[in-house]
């Protein structure tokens, strides 16, 4: 864990202590369990996003993809009678396809990631809305898939399985990003794609993989979200979730210029954001201020982090090169 991550952890703990002092019920196991569940849901998509951000890209279609995959999954399972494991595989295939398309457009046609994924944002939401004729996709009353439920919304000893899933994904992605050759290439490509190419790295392939991984994780997150809400309004499901994911990554020390960041950081970023959401409800802050609180804390966190870095640079002499 690097210094940035540590700073974030301290911020999370400090905020936690303040909230717990104001309303001790903050520490109730059920509340922590609920928050952990949301951390799991948002964490899955944020980890995906962070892989793309490492390469210097951005994936704005996450929220829409969550709506599209959610709608299809629920409709397949609830209405079309597709067995859920099959639907799950189909959704992951869909995620792979979306990621592949984005990656190809970005690497082969040299389109800017921002614009490709912005179009994705528009198109996938459109398709999701069209598919249901702008209606809601949901499970009927009493429709039940015990195994699927256990996997997604189940809890063991109060630990939500969504959180467990996120942890597993985080550990895998930690190894991939920080310990594998592919991870090294992600960092290299993010810093200087040209130079990476000169070094014999197949940069196009690395970038395509990043988008594929992101969309696969997004598809998994979409299924968890779908099972959590168990009904999906395609016009609003997942709206702005890409921004949450990006915010979490940036809070966690990622640079949108690419080449910087850690998995621990993004997970902590998600934890902080969810803590803030929880705090608004627990302290009875008007829900209209929810956004403002979130924005304010992110801004303060980033500023403090930055300033702290400056102060360190100023007063602590650099170690001999």
């Amino acid at each position, binding site marked *: 864990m690097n210094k940035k991550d540590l700073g974030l952890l301290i911020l999370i703990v400090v905020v936690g202590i303040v909230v717990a002092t104001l309303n001790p019920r903050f520490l109730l196991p*059920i509340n922590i369990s609920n928050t952990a569940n949301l951390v799991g849901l948002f964490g899955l998509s944020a980890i995906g996003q962070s892989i793309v951000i490492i390469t210097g890209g951005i994936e704005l279609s996450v929220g829409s993809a969550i709506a599209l995959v959610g709608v299809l999954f629920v409709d397949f399972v609830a209405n079309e009678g597709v067995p859920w494991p099959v639907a799950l595989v189909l959704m992951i295939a869909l995620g792979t396809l979306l990621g592949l398309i984005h990656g190809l457009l970005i690497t082969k046609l040299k389109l800017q990631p921002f614009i490709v994924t912005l179009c994705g944002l528009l198109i996938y939401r459109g398709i999701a809305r069209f598919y249901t004729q702008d*209606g809601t996709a949901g499970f009927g*009353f*009493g429709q039940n898939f015990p195994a699927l439920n256990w996997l997604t919304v189940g809890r063991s000893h109060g630990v939500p399985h969504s959180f467990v899933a996120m942890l597993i994904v985080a550990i895998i992605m930690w190894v991939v990003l920080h310990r594998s050759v592919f991870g090294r290439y992600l960092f290299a490509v993010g810093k200087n794609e040209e130079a990476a190419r000169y070094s014999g790295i197949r940069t196009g392939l690395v970038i395509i993989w990043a988008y594929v991984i992101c969309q696969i994780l997004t598809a998994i997150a979409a299924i968890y979200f779908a099972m959590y809400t*168990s*009904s999906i309004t395609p016009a609003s499901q997942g709206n702005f979730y890409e921004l949450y994911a990006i915010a979490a990554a940036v809070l966690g020390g990622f640079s949108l210029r690419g080449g910087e960041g850690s998995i621990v950081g993004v997970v902590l970023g998600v934890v902080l954001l969810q803590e803030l959401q929880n705090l608004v*409800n*627990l302290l009875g802050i008007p829900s*209209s201020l929810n956004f403002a609180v979130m924005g304010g804390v992110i801004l303060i966190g980033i500023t403090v982090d930055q300033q702290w870095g400056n102060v360190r640079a100023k007063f602590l002499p650099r170690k001999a090169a």
Partner: protein
Amino acid sequence: QSKPTIVFVANGASDFWKAAQAGVKKAQSELPDYKLELQYPDQATVASQNALMDNLVSAGVKGIIVSAVDPKNSTGEFDKLAGQTALFTTDSDAPQTKRIAYIGSSNILAGEQAAEIAKKAMPKGGKCMGFVGLLGADNARERIQGFKQGLAGTGITLVDVRGDDIDQARAKSNVSDTLVADPNVTCLVGFYSYNTPQIYAALKEGGELGKITVVGFDGDPVTLGGVKEGSIAGTVVQQPYEWAYQGMKMIAAYLKGDKSSIPANGLDIIQTKIVDSSNVDAYVAEQKAMQ
């Protein structure tokens, strides 16, 4: 160009309007001389809805019945439209405009009906927490107002209403957080159609289903299931099918020159009704029959 067109403009995409769609279809079968449609603005915003209606008028639409996103403040736009087409309102009224008539329910009355359910379920009083999509929206305000009016003088209070911006994940976590934040809350009210199912789900997960009174609005299948099961005290349903069906017929008549069906005060209130365990089966059957 061929047949005169009448459009039902909803206030945003939602399942709620599926019933209206059915009403439009029914009316179409009875009005072969007209082309009847239902359209949504791409976003639930005034700008988007206004642009949609401007375009419809440009495209030569003869009559519009609109569920305004923000009726109070659409005076100018509605008056402009009323000059170019036959304009009716539904769902939420804009009485000061030049619209011809309003066909729909009264949200204040609906709120009062919800209060009835709460009173019946909690004779000893209690603390209620409300949940809604858009806190500022007129229908939300009126329902909340009606609910409070209906509770006046009883031991039941509505302590707060949490908004979720139509984000269902937020809607659900708002409920979970409320259960944690204030253990004295004994009653939860879902003011938008999807809020009640999310209350139901959160309670179920928290293992508190049945211990807390739930009052709902609208007829989401989960809500109705909960009512039937007994874990939801009751719900107040509107009749968008009737709005669309009767509205379309009224406009068609009006366009033919028959002004008699227009109520004198310009208000055609279609009553909301309470669905509780006593009549839920009948209601569900009735809805099935309609589709």
